[in-house]
């Protein structure tokens, strides 16, 4: 990153070149990712939308990817930064494989690597504008963690990004339990995704669910949730509040 010497022009200081080389705003963004630990590993769900501001411009973006043999990454936020992160991780896994020595990077290692990357970028005022969910299973141990664009990182039994934090996690706090079966896990995730679909304006009705177990990663084919729009609250929204719209 190069800096130009600020040119004083009255009160205004121009630093144009430096600014154009760091992220100021996100442009194409993905919305929430929700993930839970279940009996055999990790389940993660996200929709396939990429918004360009308020326009739902791209409807076929895969926001969840397998990383190596043991990890699954889901991301919300700037899609181009996600692609950059995938390039970093690709190189990381490649070098790890090149050792060819029976050791491999597990989800904990990848999570911490990402935490370092995100935090260091934030320190340079040039963040990768994403919130990342990293889940995986290695040697029978399940791992699920999250890193934000400012480098805040933690692990939990269930995580969500963006709107998912406000709409999905309360549901998960009430209904998540240890050793969920695959079917129950999917039902729980779909419940969360349905609420997000109704209430998050950048969500689209085309989602994927990814499963991570000791055997590996499977990302489902895209599908839609059944929705119901005939609730009286929807058809007659102002019945309880005269004068509101």
């Amino acid at each position, binding site marked *: 990153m190069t800096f130009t010497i600020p040119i004083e022009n009255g009160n205004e200081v121009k630093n144009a070149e430096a600014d154009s080389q760091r992220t100021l705003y996100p442009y194409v963004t993905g919305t929430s990712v929700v993930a839970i630990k279940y009996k055999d590993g990790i389940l993660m769900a996200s929709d396939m939308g990429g918004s360009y501001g308020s326009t739902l411009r791209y409807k076929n973006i895969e926001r969840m990817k397998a990383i190596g043999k043991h990890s699954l990454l889901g991301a919300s936020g700037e899609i181009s930064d996600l692609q950059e992160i995938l390039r970093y991780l690709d190189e990381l896994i490649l070098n790890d494989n090149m050792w060819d020595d029976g050791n491999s990077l597990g989800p904990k*290692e990848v999570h*911490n690597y990402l935490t*370092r990357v995100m935090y260091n970028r934030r320190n340079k005022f040039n963040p990768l504008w994403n919130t990342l969910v990293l889940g995986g299973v290695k040697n029978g141990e399940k791992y699920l963690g999250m890193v934000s664009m400012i480098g805040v990182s933690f692990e939990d039994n269930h995580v969500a990004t963006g709107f998912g934090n406000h709409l999905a996690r309360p549901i998960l706090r009430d209904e998540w339990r240890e050793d969920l079966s695959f079917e129950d896990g999917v039902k729980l995730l779909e419940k969360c995704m349905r609420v997000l679909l109704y209430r998050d304006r950048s969500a689209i009705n085309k989602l994927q669910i990814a499963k991570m177990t000791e055997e590996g990663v499977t990302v489902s084919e895209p599908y839609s949730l059944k929705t119901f729009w005939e609730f009286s609250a929807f058809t007659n929204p102002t019945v309880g509040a005269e004068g509101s719209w």
Partner: protein
Amino acid sequence: MFRNQYDTDVTTWSPTGRLFQVEYAMEAVKQGSAAIGLRSRSHVVLACVNKAQSELSSHQRKIFKVDDHIGVAIAGLTADGRVLSRYMRSESINHSFTYESPLPVGRLVVRLADKAQVCTQWSWKRPYGVGLLVGGLDESGAHLYYNCPSGNYFEYQAFAIGSRSQAAKTYLERRFENFKESSREELIKDAILAIRETLQGETLKSSLCTVSVLGVDEPFHFLDQESIQKVIDTFEKVPEDEEDNAGEAEIGAVAPAEQGGSGDQDLAPMEM
């Protein structure tokens, strides 16, 4: 080994395809006092003989903790060894910081070997004059490696380096097949017995040796003098122990000297 016209520079090959400077560096390892390493499936023991410059000084440190799961024993130029230990500690801690996970010992050893190789290919450098026995853990269990000044590294079940290490190696060669399944205590005992071999006549006392252990559920640490002495006492005091009898019978010339030595100490008389 005698001097010849191809040994001035590390970057000069001899007509027979040898780099004499590198070989001379390996000689330096043989001058240092003995260091021994052995491993089982789950533990690694590193032991060395404490040699002091004079009676007035303390002995040099030859075993270093690199991380909770990696230790290194050196023989040769201890200054070079200290510098390389610092490098190893640095690599290990940087990995831990980035990945929050211990650096697999096999990967550390390769980096160390690559560092040594650099010194064999630049005319303004000299090879490190120290051999390193690196013991550590990774996903597949316990490992023991030997890093050579030449930049080569080898994996071992058990190995000894430094002066009079051949005696220890002979002892280890006889017993190494059992090491894989050995318990921690048996491994420590074998290490101390191997050290005894290198002493060749000198009485074995806990002040003469340093022993360190690391294992799957045990971070690297040194054994204190008391524990070492206890292990020594088990074989110095109980000669009818099968292993010791077999061992001592095969040692041959060394055994009588041991007996004579033990007599000087306040240990129970040998009942041979």
